């Protein structure tokens, strides 16, 4: 676990340094994800340890959004002023985005059978 966590942090650090150094609009961790992906593509499948550690981290990915989500309490008053416009915009836009993305993909997909179980 320790070496896997170290690897993840090294890639995050590399992403952070490159993103800031080159003034890229991407956050460090997202660039770190791309770098690790490239590394895996070059050197082959991730070792067992990296595999299990990531699985453990991603299994509770939701937990990691809780501290930032709780920050809503600081902004409740700002949201209160324009709540109707905000709520309608977020609600309709999120559903429209889901629908349009899925529809566009479905329309230009070659007819190959889907693998895996349906969520």
């Amino acid at each position, binding site marked *: 676990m320790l070496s896997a966590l170290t690897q993840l942090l090294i890639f995050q650090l590399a992403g952070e340094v490159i993103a800031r150094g080159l003034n890229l609009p991407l956050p460090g961790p997202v660039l770190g994800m791309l770098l690790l992906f490239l590394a895996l593509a070059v050197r082959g499948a991730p070792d067992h340890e990296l595999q299990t550690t990531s699985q453990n981290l991603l299994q509770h990915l939701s*937990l990691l959004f809780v501290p930032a989500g709780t920050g809503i309490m600081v902004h409740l008053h700002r949201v209160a002023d324009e709540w109707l416009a905000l709520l*309608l915009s977020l609600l309709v836009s*999120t559903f429209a985005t889901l629908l349009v993305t899925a529809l566009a993909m479905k329309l230009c997909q070659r007819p190959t059978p889907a693998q895996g179980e349906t969520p």
Partner: protein
Amino acid sequence: MTPRISEIWVYLAASPLLGLTITLLAYQGAFWIFRKSGNHPLANPVLIAVTVLVLFLTVTGTSYETYFAGAQFVHFLLGPATVALAIPLYTQFKRVKAMLLPVIVGLFAGSLTAIISAVAIGRLFGASLPTQLSLAPKSVTTPIAMGVAERIGGIPSLTAVLVIVTGILGAVGARYVFDAMKLRDPAIRGFAIGVASHGIGTARAFQVNEQSGAFAALAMGLNGALTALLLPLMVAWLHFA
């Protein structure tokens, strides 16, 4: 008796231990409800945990800063977890390669829909210009969205809230949209969730299916990059600000 309890409270309220512990407790409780409901999307663990924590902090008069001093240890793991998304992406890459065209078309269609519809509806219902601009990047992951909002004249901290709400809405609502469309392919379902509702949607996708999760992670990264490049150009082009 009472002074002693309040003394203990004064100590606990100032130490990071409390913020960290209540975060884990609230989440485990929320996750238990989520499992008990048969992974029902309405029982979203982020939504439940955040609601419980906001109520608890408000009732006890604890400030968010004090809470975050402890919760930051959980928050920090978001970085390495984002990097770890590379592994399912690698595992599923064969499928991604086979779906290159739908992925690219879906990305552009979804990204533009997210930006334009959010701003247009906000404008229609009388949101102020800074609010409209804060709404524009709401479908991408928080650090990108806040950076973009700042650049185009929105309010970054308002954007952060809108991003979280969007994530929860997408995670809760996606199944109903896809079922209504009779869409079964886990790759498309995952990708659309990732485009519309970034990391919180991705977390939901992983709870359902590994392939959906990998495609959601891919969509989150791609839409973040595309929005960061596209949105400032669109705003300048439309002479918005």
